[in-house]
């Protein structure tokens, strides 16, 4: 059975071709319920390809370096970074916003696209959600270690302190951040785990060792696949999706408040919430593409994560990239139209001041590179979209750099202007966070279903139904 699926050449059919009146198939390769299960389960059940070991080893070392550097940082002081006056926030906060932004795609795909009945989400939502969780973990680390006294970072949480008799200061956007990111992380985790339950049960049932069976058994929470289970599962899933949907918008809105609520020229703008959300979705999808293009190749999942999935994501990247470009233009318009000298200078300085290079890297990566997706060839060729998606990631990191660093470097009093340069530790710790992210993601591929099997099976059913209904005679008909 498995051989049928894997021997199929995806180029025999291009499901990105639009034919009027016909719904393009989302799953290719003449799949059955069983073949889907086989396809997905083999990822975890078969020995991992050598590339996995290479990547995992490298990622793990990088992650270990990351945690060692955190230890060193806490022993020594945040001065090992390039933070300075007036740029009191630099790479750590840039990294935080970068990772939080990446964490947006998962919940958007699983919650919003679910509510809008976008069935193509099913092949990618599991990996995207996992990516979200891991990105939020990376994001959460940075503000925690960024504070001068990291061992007291818990003071930002509202807990009934017995020796202080005080709450945190609720007017501070940083506190809102704690709530927003905390809520987002917990809801995303629950949502992800809920979705995993039927598939974990499949893994349990297919387990060949007692140990695996036990572990998967515990985490599948006694799932039997009965109708009652399914009924409750679907209801809960819908409810969680409804709950998670506003969070997609709220997290980055609140993160943007860190900047927008302050009075710094270049930060103090009302456009930030929508602009940040658009940017976050943009970067999130960029990262999903960056991850899934190799994953579908390595694990031979081309029939499940098809070109059409990738193309759809690229279209979202194109749309959100354009939104981001519009936001950049709007910022400049507002800087001029507001008549505020400080604001005007902040933006001209962004584009033509000492950090012009960062600004133009940002613009090229975020505004120009997604526009390439207008060309179908580019948005349907995995290697090209992979390259563009990496540019999107670079651009979005620079967007946060530009907002954070250039605004701070030249604010009100010219006597306090400065020029920030990062240290080795800034670079190593940013790199290290990728190590942590990749370690977690590779473990996820190794031990958990990377595609939501149960949901994809549902898609096959719909696909078949649709095919029958329209009298379609495609090759997937009649298994």
């Amino acid at each position, binding site marked *: 059975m498995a051989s049928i699926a894997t021997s199929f050449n995806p180029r025999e059919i291009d499901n990105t071709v639009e034919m009027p009146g016909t719904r393009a198939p989302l799953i290719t390769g003449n799949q059955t319920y069983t073949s889907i299960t086989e396809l997905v389960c083999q990822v975890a059940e078969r020995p991992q390809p050598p590339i996995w070991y290479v990547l995992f080893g490298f990622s793990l070392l990088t992650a270990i370096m990351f945690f060692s550097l955190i230890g060193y940082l806490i022993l020594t002081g945040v*001065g090992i970074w390039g933070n300075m006056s007036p740029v009191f926030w630099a790479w750590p906060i840039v990294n935080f916003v970068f990772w939080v932004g990446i964490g947006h795609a998962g919940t958007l795909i699983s919650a919003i696209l679910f509510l809008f009945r976008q069935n193509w989400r099913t092949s990618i939502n599991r990996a995207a959600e996992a990516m979200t969780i891991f990105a939020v973990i990376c994001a959460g680390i940075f503000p925690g270690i960024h504070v001068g006294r990291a061992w007291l970072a818990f003071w930002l949480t509202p807990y009934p302190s017995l020796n202080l008799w005080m709450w945190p200061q609720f007017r501070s956007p940083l506190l809102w951040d704690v709530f927003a990111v905390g809520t987002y992380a917990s809801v995303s985790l629950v949502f992800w785990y809920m979705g995993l339950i039927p598939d974990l049960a499949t893994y349990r049932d297919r387990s060949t060792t007692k140990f695996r069976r036990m572990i998967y058994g515990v985490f599948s929470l006694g799932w039997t696949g009965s109708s009652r289970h399914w009924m409750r599962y679907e209801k809960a899933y819908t409810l969680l999706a409804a709950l998670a949907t506003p969070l997609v918008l709220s997290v980055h809105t609140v993160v943007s408040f860190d900047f927008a609520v302050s009075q710094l020229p270049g930060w103090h703008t009302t456009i930030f919430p929508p602009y940040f959300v658009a940017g976050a979705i943009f970067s999130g999808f960029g990262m999903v593409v960056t991850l899934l293009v190799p994953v579908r190749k390595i694990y031979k999942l081309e029939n499940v994560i098809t070109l059409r999935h990738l193309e759809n994501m690229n279209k979202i990247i194109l749309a959100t990239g354009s939104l981001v470009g519009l936001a950049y233009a709007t910022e400049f318009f507002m800087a001029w139209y507001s008549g505020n000298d400080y604001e005007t200078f902040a933006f001209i300085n962004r584009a033509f*001041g000492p950090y012009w290079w960062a600004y133009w890297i940002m613009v090229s990566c975020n505004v120009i590179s997604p526009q390439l997706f207008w060309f179908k060839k580019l948005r349907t060729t995995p290697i090209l979209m992979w390259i563009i998606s990496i540019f999107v990631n670079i651009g979005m990191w620079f967007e946060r750099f530009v907002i954070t660093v250039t605004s701070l470097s030249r*604010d009100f009093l010219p006597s306090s202007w400065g020029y920030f340069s990062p240290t080795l530790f800034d670079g190593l710790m940013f790199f290290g966070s990728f190590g942590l992210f990749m370690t977690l993601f590779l473990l996820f591929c190794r031990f958990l279903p990377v595609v939501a099997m149960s949901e994809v099976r549902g898609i096959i059913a719909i696909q078949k139904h649709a095919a029958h209904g329209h009298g379609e005679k495609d090759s997937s008909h009649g298994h």
Partner: protein
Amino acid sequence: MKLPVTASEKQFFRSVDQLEGTPEFNEFLEREFPVAASEFPEGVSRRRWMQLMGASVAFAGASGCRYYREEFAGFVVPPSGRVAGLPQSFATNFVWAGKVVNGLVKSLDGRPIKVDGNAMHPMFATSANSGYADGKDEKFAQAGSDAATQAAVLSLYDPDRLGWLVQRDDRSLPAGKMVTVAESVAQKKGPVNWTDFDIAARSQLETLGGNGGEGLAIVYEPAPTPTFNRLLAEVAAKFPKATLVPYESVYGRNAVKGLESLGVSNVTVNHRLDKATVIVAIDADLFGSESASVINARQFSINRDPNGGNMNRLYCIESQFSTTGSAADFRYALQSSQMVAFLKRLEAAIDAGTPFEASAEELNYSKLSPSERLERVLQVIATDLLANKGKSLVTVGYQQDPAAHQIAMRINAKLENVGKTLFLLDAPNELAGLKSIKLDEFARQAANGQFNTAWIFAPNPVYTVAGDIDLPAALLAIKTVVYAADYDDETAVYSTWSLPLTHPLEAWSDVRSADGTYGVCQPMIEPVTGARSSIELLSILAGFEELDPAKIVSGTLQKLAGGSFTERLWQEALHDGFLKDSQYQVSSATINTAAEDLKPLPASAIAAEGENGSEPTVAKNEVLFSDPDNVDLSRLEVVVLPSDTVYDGRLANNGWMQECPQPITKLTWDNAALMSVSTARALGVGQSRATAEMVVIRQGDAMTKLPIFIVPGQAEGTIVVALGYGRSRAGSVGGVSGQFDVGHSIQGLRRWNQAFILNGIEVSGTTEPYKLATTQDHFAIEDQLGMGEIPRRAQVIVREGTLASYEKDHQFAKVSHHGLKIDSLWKEPEVRENHAWGMSIDLNKCSGCNACVIACQAENNVPIVGKEQVSRGREMHWLRIDRYFTADREATAAKGDSTNPVDPRIVTQPMACAHCETAPCEQVCPVAATVHTEDGINAMAYNRCVGTRYCANNCPYKVRRFNYFNYNQKYGYFYGWQDKRETANTKLQSLVLNPDVTVRGRGVMEKCTYCVQRVQNAKIMARNKGGVPIADGDVRTACQEACASQAIVFGDLNDKTSRVYANHNDPRSYAVLEELNIKPRTQYLARLRNVPVRLMTSEQLNPTWNHSHSEHGEEHHGDEHGHDHEEHAGEHEEAHS
């Protein structure tokens, strides 16, 4: 161990003898000891132990120790009236970095922690605050000081000070490790001690005594210290064949030489800037390196109140850009070597006597060519001086040729200023009649083996001496060199004996102030390094019976007071800090103004008199001004001046001074070759980002390589370099050769006869980069965008007008906010505060001298961070002085080169936390670590701070400072290991900390607190007195106390009679960035320049900029002005690069 006490009655004893005689004692001796005592270590008999015990008992009870005991030690029974933990203040006087300090030292439980000026001292009392008719002046009696004085306490606790006697028999280099306090503590004891030295000295003196002091040389630094001089005279009397060698690294007697050439001798000169309406400073940094800088600033500032109608006018003609130049009403840049010629022209104009009249169609100053400008300046100054006969003053810098002083004195005499603004005082010279030789002569004779013994009482001559004198060789040729050393420094390694010398806060001494007032220097603490003072050492040399320095000093006072001397007078002099009515008498000498009668200037008697060579390099009747478009490199001059921070290098190991931003350049931890834009271009060197290119300066065989630093407005063709850097044995802060260097030494380039102004030097550029650490413009702002924006903003941030514009419109400083409506988004809550503390800073008085910066550092335990951290922008100063360049915009625009502004001027602005009523920092702190107190102070709860740094981002003034590392201890693991300076903050140095202020740890934000500890103390005092209200002037911040010009006023804004309230309601008062609606409690009084009309630039004549603000509000950027902005953005640039 219990003392023997009889059952019947206690017996007190005064001495061992008395004790030994008692039967109880004998009984006690014979009695069997307890078990513990008999286990005393072997080798010490019970009898010996008893003797030791007896001796210690005797010492414990004996009075008549070195100093009055109660002044230094903790007490079992404290003297009445003394409360532990409450500071005491003692008046004292000492010479510090070439200046006489009339100080009031704050001492806490026997530990001096702060030096301020003594407001009671006649020097300050005669120029007290004025303008407030409320009779509360005495509350505001404040003196002021300078940065070096504020940093004096740090030197006291410097762990690198020489901690033990060092005897070097082998003086061949390399000299090995420095001997410091820290090292001697580690070794428990040094190889030699004072007893060894006393024995050696005795035999030495016996030999010398036998031959009348043949072969003995005493090198000393001349200073107004009567007792030292008296002892020196005694030594000279005892050893008639001994040789005296006066040597000062920064020679300050050119004025006296100039006077002597006019037939006036044995006088000192005392200026009274407060009596002068027109002051012309010729190459004189009146508020900086001049020895009377503090009192100058005070006297100048009391006539800077436009409301009182007594605005004086200061012209500054100088080559460097000094603090005086930035404070001046009008500044003209001219090479130092041209000053004599300039003065000759000025004298000629005054001799002509006819004031110049301006014609109606005359061009304004902006439109003149460089040569026309010079003519105009001469005309205007001469006219102004003639119009203010008896109310004017022409003063010349100490570094100038005696000829310049001669002419200036003659001008003053012709203007009838002598006896009115300039006093010639009869100064008794204790050393008169004693034969002395110069240091160059000494070096020659020593090399010939004419001396076998030398005693050195001058700080580190080997380092400071001019390059053409081989002092090391001279010292090596002397068998015994005794050096009274602060540090185991460059001179110590050539000395056979290096004796630890006391810090002025540890020693008895005395001084004469500029007006002659006698003051005693009394010790505040036992010498922390076991040192002896130079008075003690000299009295050994003089073979005195009486070695108690207090008695010796009081002996001087006794001689001075004559028959009226009483113990009470002595105590009063100690208490007040001065001897009443001890000023010098005004001399009856008259200045000979007839030029033809002049004697030629006498040959130099002492080192380093700064004659610019015997042959003048230019025709002295014609002033050669430099054309910025065509810098004549053949006329380059190098002006070597003592550093504004480390003086001649003797403060090099003082971290506060090393990190104190130099007033104009804002450079720290370095010196550089300062030059104008045009000069740098002519030399083909540049400066960008954090690095500057190096230049090589050659004088004969001597060569120095050092980085350039571009200072717009410095005279073309003048390179200014600060002394005191490049020390090879300064210590863990100031540099140790082979380990790390701080700056570059310029000493080798100085010539014995060319100490300050070096002509005939050769300068060539290199492309070698060098990293500089500045606290402002952390990188030179090189982009047109930034450079265009700075003057635009500086205009609004530091508001400035001319006196004329102020008289026309008192509200000119507020003009830019006319039409600006500040609305709050919500209804702001009524705030009820017990007090509303506020501050007012008068920019018209501030000269940017840095005294407040270091005072704040001393008061608030602000750490230093080292050069590497400064270059990262992490300096911790709570109070900084912002410096902005402005320029003649029209002339600059006409030239079309915005990077090389014409006639640049500097405005300074002290900037610290403004304690905004609606503080942006408070809104964003997630843990409520920065909050308002009930007094309206924006406070920091350090314990609560976790260090998110959000507050600092949201602070529009960027006055918050973050502890990136544990700056007060050590930086951290692996980090900072390359920077040995961190050790400067440890151990002994921590004695300098103010116990009233928390020492902040790593990861915590900090900033100015308005000296909340002082506010709280005042409140506690008021409550203890039964709830009396806190009067205006009861709370004075550290910066306010340090400000000699009284520019800073602090007080309660709720008190409608307070000075700060009055200042806030002054028409000149404005708040920086008030358009943000943050309501800062610190406001500034706008700066006024009292420029004569004929020297006004187009902009000053017609301040259109402000008018456009008044019509359209400050935030205008509409179409109609967009063009204006573009045009002006490039016109007046702050050019650093």
